[in-house]
């Protein structure tokens, strides 16, 4: 039913990694299709205000940009892979379908916030830090009027800054890890190594100007309210993140933004059968995955921020172009930036880990899986009373990870709570995004964008 559309290189994701990959590949003369879910380029890091007509980023001439498009499956074909795409308004049954055959794929699907559960985290008014950021930057709206920002890592700073920018009062930033020493001796030093001193100085100035307290070793351990957040309990944490008795404080807030690092968006890499290690896609020096013709760049390969992602994207784009027969000069500068970026990312990961004491924040009736409303007691029961120890049996017995988000939010937490030593144990999803049955059944004729086949070298 669908006509075969051919593009030498398909790049999935238009954040820092995907944009750099697109540019690098297109610069060699290869024909490139860039697929992204958003109407505008930039991804999460460079999120643009969706309410203006401006587009901040320019793509090289000839690049086919499929906006508002999601890849719901990838399958191997002779000489490459086929990407199945739906294009149109989010979750609409009226989206159009396209299949694109590509000789090389660059996966640049990014990451999303990891949220740790605590009593009351399912109340409206508890947001991920990324939600607060996306709504502020993309929609100009504050998630609350009195907001507490909590979690770990330097990302909390731009979130607080964005919240202030849209008129919210940020009552405090709580960093669950300790203030780190040496070259990471203050919260703003943490990113200085990535050439972000200026950006961080701006955040620091915002914090000082708005008298926002920054507290290390403290976390939100409970949110209170009937149908929405009205207050939170915070506590000082020991080195393992267990709350110190007697250190609890209550604050009145109408929103909480929590972020404990990031989880890579792995489903397409998993369905392409790329090798994973420690929950990330394994790549070589050319950003090639274990699957010939499939390259990965950005947070999929390890959490390292926008600068590293862009360098990886530049290398992945060049490598993909070489794979399809273009003449490519080795991107030595980008490769050097990757090496230094990875050293920095490793230091960052060591400074802001998730520590196991978060499990003590949970009570029996604390939801672990928000979609299927599975609480901690039910998850423990599945493991201890019914012997469900693998990810599949745990899902089937407890229902954790079986809901609408398909374990994206709870997967890493359920794995950790159940003693499964693989953060990606819940990342396998045959459908990378939910589709409606009418879409799967092909109720609408598949449309085809015009893409010139072949390499234009």
């Amino acid at each position, binding site marked *: 039913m669908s006509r075969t559309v051919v593009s030498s290189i398909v790049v999935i994701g238009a954040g820092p990694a995907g944009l750099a990959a697109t540019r690098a590949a297109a610069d060699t003369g290869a024909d490139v299709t860039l697929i992204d879910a958003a109407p505008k380029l930039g991804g*999460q890091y460079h999120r643009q*205000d*969706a309410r203006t007509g401006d587009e901040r980023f320019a793509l090289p001439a000839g690049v086919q940009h499929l906006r508002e498009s999601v890849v719901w499956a990838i399958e191997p074909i002779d000489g490459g892979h086929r990407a199945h795409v739906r294009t149109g308004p*989010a979750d609409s049954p009226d989206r159009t379908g396209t299949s694109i055959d590509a000789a090389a794929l660059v996966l640049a699907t990014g990451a999303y916030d990891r949220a740790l559960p605590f009593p009351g985290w*399912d109340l409206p008014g508890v*947001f991920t830090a990324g939600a607060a950021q996306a*709504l502020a930057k993309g929609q100009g*709206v504050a998630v609350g009027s009195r907001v507490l920002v909590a979690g770990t890592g330097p990302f909390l700073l731009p979130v607080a800054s964005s919240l202030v920018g849209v008129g919210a009062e940020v009552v405090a930033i709580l960093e669950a890890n300790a203030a780190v020493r040496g070259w990471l001796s203050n919260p703003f030093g943490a990113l200085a190594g990535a050439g972000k001193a200026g950006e961080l100085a701006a955040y620091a100035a915002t914090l000082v100007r708005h008298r926002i307290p920054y507290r290390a070793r403290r976390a939100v351990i409970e949110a209170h309210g009937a149908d929405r957040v009205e207050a939170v309990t915070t506590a000082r944490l020991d080195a393992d993140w267990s709350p110190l008795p007697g250190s609890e404080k209550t604050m009145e807030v109408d929103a909480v933004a929590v972020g404990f690092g990031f989880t890579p*968006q792995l489903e397409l890499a998993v369905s392409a059968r790329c090798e994973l290690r420690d929950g990330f896609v394994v790549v070589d020096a050319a950003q090639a995955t274990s699957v010939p013709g499939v390259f990965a760049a950005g947070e999929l390969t390890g959490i390292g921020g926008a600068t590293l992602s862009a360098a990886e994207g530049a290398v992945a784009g060049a490598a993909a172009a070489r794979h399809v027969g273009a003449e490519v000069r080795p991107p030595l500068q980008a490769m050097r930036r990757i090496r230094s970026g990875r050293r920095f990312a490793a230091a960052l990961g060591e400074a802001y880990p998730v520590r196991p004491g978060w499990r003590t924040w949970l009570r029996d009736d604390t939801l672990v899986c928000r979609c299927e409303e599975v609480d901690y007691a039910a998850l423990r029961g599945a493991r201890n009373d019914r012997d469900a120890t693998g990810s599949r049996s745990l899902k089937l017995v407890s229902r954790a990870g079986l809901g609408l988000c398909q374990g994206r939010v709870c997967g890493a937490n359920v794995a950790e709570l159940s003693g499964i030593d693989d953060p990606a144990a819940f990342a396998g999803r045959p459908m990378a995004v*939910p589709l409606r049955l009418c879409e799967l059944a092909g109720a609408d004729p598949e449309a085809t964008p015009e893409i010139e086949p072949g390499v234009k070298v």
Partner: protein
Amino acid sequence: MRVRVDGEVCEAEEGQTVAGVLLAAGRNSWRSTRRGGRPRGVFCGIGVCFDCLVVVNGVPDVRACQRRVEPDDEIRTQHGAELPS
């Protein structure tokens, strides 16, 4: 542009998402869960968690944080699991 939210007329502008409109209107929940009937709204804000589902023009299970509003959209609260009308 104008949209309707649970029957009431609401001003919206081009490029706003359904979640952007609802939050700006002071709402922070617009769905009830299937089992506990608990209120939910935006959680992840970037299309990952599926907590912010809402009914748009009779079609349920639309992520409010991802869907951009169109003139005269009929937006309403989603109660548990709903079938398209």
